[in-house]
């Protein structure tokens, strides 16, 4: 039973209130095998990116190794002075993200509109 491939697409959304928002849309599984897709894609973003929106609405399966990759992305974002907002998590994974403390470093939003608006 192979894991589902992790797919990440990147979009840039214009913002009337400041820097554009870079959206990373994840789909498939996010596991230990997802490092090239998750961190590789993140590291390929230009240094000029200041606002990052994470979309988990199409993720089928996420485990603790996948969550660790999200934390590693947040460590890198903190060093680059970026702000991260997140949406699309199921109620269960909102609870899990809260349990492990990720919510100290990103806010979890119910949908893309509220997450985008949170950049101000």
């Amino acid at each position, binding site marked *: *039973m192979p894991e589902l491939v992790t797919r990440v697409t990147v979009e840039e959304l214009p913002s009337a209130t400041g820097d554009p928002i870079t959206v990373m849309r994840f789909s498939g599984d996010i596991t230990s095998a997802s490092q090239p897709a998750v961190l590789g894609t993140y590291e390929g973003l230009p240094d000029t990116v200041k606002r990052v929106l994470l979309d988990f609405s199409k993720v089928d399966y996420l*485990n603790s190794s996948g969550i660790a990759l999200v934390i590693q992305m*947040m*460590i890198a974002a903190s060093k680059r002075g970026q702000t991260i907002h997140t949406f699309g998590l199921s*109620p269960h994974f909102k609870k*899990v993200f809260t349990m*492990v403390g990720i919510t100290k*470093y990103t806010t979890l939003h119910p949908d893309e509109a509220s997450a985008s608006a949170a950049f101000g």
Partner: protein
Amino acid sequence: MSIGRTSGDRSSSSIELRLPSRLGYEKVAMNTAASVARLMGFSEERVEDLKTAVAEACINAMEHGNKLDDSLSVGVILSMDANSLEVKVTDNGEGPQSNPDAPDIDKKMLGEEDARGMGMFLIQALVDEAEWVSSPPAGSYARMVIHLGQPQV
């Protein structure tokens, strides 16, 4: 992968799976446990809790217990009675050497703690009972129980 049903008793019964120590196969155990929990009448929130706990226990068994040795299998035994569902995940290793600590996100962000290593914490946080039993040379197991009617996490 093999599947067996070990008891036909109406009041308690069990299902056994044997999985290869290959990442990805934990989803077989996770989805089997979810199906059983739904049949027993657990809420969807509790089913999701159990899915994560079972997947993490299987991943630990594959990675740490069996060192991803494809020739070693991970056993999963689901035992049901009227009020509870117990899942035992067995491997050939020595079991964890310490109790799970809550992850410290600030230490992780500062690089003072590995970004990984949250599996046992999540298991303990998501089920009603969790224990890890080491019994070399026979192997080790993680045991998890959820109870019907228990307040949600």
